[in-house]
């Protein structure tokens, strides 16, 4: 293939690279080195495929779309939570070994595959979308400017890298009982800001989902491969809504007058 010509369009000079991959299961494991030839334009996931095909047929890796759209191939590459399919080898310092480790926040199943069921269980607890009645003619009208924000949240590919990097649960297993994590703040914000939704989840967001644990370090925003402004656009507005709902003296007074709570 003509385009394989070395030197064309940013081909790395180095001929091979050492991949230092965590191998093991729930009972333990260790990093193993694999020497892999470097091909033009490859991403980390391609290198994993090379290793599977030629050196370790049983290397466990999750993947699907290979184009940053499904959020399956999350891992920690040189310590950074990334999608393997969107991390080009020529952006990494290939003269050193490249480490690839499973997401730390979730229990290891095998090699780079972790047990992310925490997220699927949490999803079950989120009160469903509950739309208001349609317009008189049976249609539903929403204007683009009113859905722009919620559409940003719908970009989430559920890679769970934000959950992985969030220090509230990364280093504190015990917090998982009381903290939903950035992924779910994005989901809850999407529902809260959906122009048609009628459910109020603010009590849950404060109590069960532990929004108060977040101290806005923005780690989640930094790792989001979809560039969702998790902290600024989802978490902070939710915090404001919670404060308004539960602490605002005017709201409290109004409720007392109206005989609520």
């Amino acid at each position, binding site marked *: 293939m003509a385009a394989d010509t070395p030197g064309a369009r940013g081909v790395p000079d180095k001929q091979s690279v050492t991949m230092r991959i965590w191998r093991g299961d729930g009972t333990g494991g260790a990093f193993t080195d694999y020497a892999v030839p470097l091909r033009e*334009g490859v991403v980390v996931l391609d290198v994993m495929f090379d290793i599977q095909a030629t050196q370790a*047929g049983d290397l466990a890796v999750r*993947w699907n779309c290979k*184009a940053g759209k*499904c959020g399956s191939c999350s891992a920690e590459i040189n310590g950074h939570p990334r999608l393997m399919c969107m991390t*080009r080898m020529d952006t990494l310092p290939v003269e050193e070994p490249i480490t690839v480790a499973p997401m730390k926040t979730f229990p290891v199943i095998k090699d780079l595959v972790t047990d992310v069921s925490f997220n699927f269980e949490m999803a079950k607890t989120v009160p469903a*979308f509950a*739309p208001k009645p349609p317009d008189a003619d049976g249609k539903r*009208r929403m204007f*683009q400017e009113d859905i722009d924000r919620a559409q940003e949240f719908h970009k989430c590919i559920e890679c769970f890298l934000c959950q992985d990097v969030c220090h509230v649960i990364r280093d504190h297993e015990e917090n998982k009982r009381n903290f939903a994590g950035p992924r779910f703040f994005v989901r809850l914000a999407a529902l809260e800001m959906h122009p048609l939704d009628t459910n109020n989840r603010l009590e849950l967001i404060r109590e069960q989902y532990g929004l108060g644990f977040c101290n806005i370090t923005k780690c989640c925003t930094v790792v989001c491969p979809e560039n969702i402004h998790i902290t600024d656009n989802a978490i902070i507005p939710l915090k404001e809504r919670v404060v308004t709902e539960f602490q605002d003296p005017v709201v409290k007074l109004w409720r007392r007058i109206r005989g609520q709570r």
Partner: protein
Amino acid sequence: MEGYETHDYDVVVVGAGGAGIRAAIEASAQGARTALICKSLLGKAHTVMAEGGIAAALGNVWPEDNWKVHFRDTMRGGKLVNNWRMAQIHAQEAPDRVLELEEWGALFDRTKDGLILQRDFAGHRYARLGHVGDRTGLEMIRTLQQRAVHKGIDVFMECTIQTLLKDGDRVCGAFGYWRESGKFVLFSARAVVLATGGIGKAWKITSNSWEYTADGHAMGLLAGAELIDMEFVQFHPTGMVWPPSVRGILVTEGVRGDGGVLRNTEGRRFMFDYISDFFRAETADTEAEGDRWYDDHHNNRRPPELLPRDEVARAINSEVKAGRGTPAGGVLLDIASRMPAEKIRRRLPSMYHQFKELAGVDITATPMEVGPTCHYVMGGVRVDADSTASTVPGLFAAGECAGGLHGSNRLGGNSLSDLVVFGRRAGLYAAEYARSQAGAPRIDAGQVDEAARAALAPFEGTGAENPYSIHADLQQTMQDLVGIIRRGDELDKALVELEALEERTERMTVTGNRQFNPGWHLALDLRNMLEISKVVTHCALARKESRGGHTREDYPTTDPHFAQVNHVVRRRPDGGIDLREEPIPEMPAELKALFEEQK
């Protein structure tokens, strides 16, 4: 044999893309105890990669649009060998299914009036695709996924179904393994819905993921179901071509729908040189007319970049062969000179991101290099148009793994609508069938033992064959010999090579243990890919004409005989393949008339 866990359900849905989840939602709503089983995590199925949109004649942008126009477009896109009844149901029900997604929380892009915005796509007379930028599939799968979760449907994730179990003539269950542990699991069921997607992982340059290994097609065939029109494989005209490692990744047709044009390396908009007689009357013959069409559909004809996918893919292939392609073997898709950068980033955000990150190309400034990539199979399990029932009692199929709707070529946008229209019907009729079955399904231990033995065989192998190399060779064979342009002698050669590959699988050995072992999983998926690759090749040999997604260099035109037939395939007990021609179902007069009046 070792013990295995068992579950009993009324309806078991295999596959959790758009069709599978929609089927499970419906079956469950009908009161059936329903299981949804998927090879990956929930929400990662191929549907998530669909980009451009979902076709439905909502008439929000062009009030003239209606189901009859959509029906006609679908039939013409498939070169009229589609199952007319499926195409009719699809066009009639798609709008309701789209509105239902909105009812469940989906946020489609809006018109100025606040309704669902629709975009132009190839082969659709009017702007018809509801969309969310270029990530419509993500919106759809997430909406369906959340609906299914809130309805409390039992989901079995990372669980691969390997074999359908039979009780006499009817399907009574499914047997497979947990990918995480490698342990076996059995589902007894009154009805099974296949929603396993496609077969594209058998080709080398493909937009399809590891999951697309023809599982439903092969399991259906082995269980006695008929397959239809398996020669029709769609090569999407625009996949990425550079760098080599991303070759085949999809570039949405929305780029052309929004005004993007194709040029060769001489700068020519070459699609004007490839307008076939079939579409000549409705296609612009000058660039000026094509450009005017975007704003005025009434007084202008559509640009040839928006011909159906089969036409555009063949044209690109010819340009590259004629030496007017890029060094990497593609042509140029230019949106940069056609639209302001800001609008490109808003309309095509994931294309912008994909090219920026993977190819280092800024599509608001530079054309994209694109070429054909294996994308979709029109053929599939033969189903009853209304009920999605296969020819085996208790077995239903919907979505890509079912055949008939798209004829010889699928229009873009008709897949997402197919999934929800026929996914719903599959769930509905599977639940109804399950209700009609009085006794509990009887599981035959012999069949289970046999399936378990077959699954473990690769661990007991002593041969030197490795599943990854057999798979790579299979992909090369299908790419070279059963690809976008086919020839009788090459198809014959493919059958010989497929035979040899099958022999090699007998000497296949996998390393490691049963816990999350991709080598083992591939070894098992290979059986399905090989089986269906043979079927595709046989059908391609038999159709001695060129039509839609099937192009024969040795029979370059359409043939009046083949215009009247579908290919139907069954598997003989000895493993051989019976292929027969069946006349295409006769269209009623009122539908036929649609093709007269709108010429």
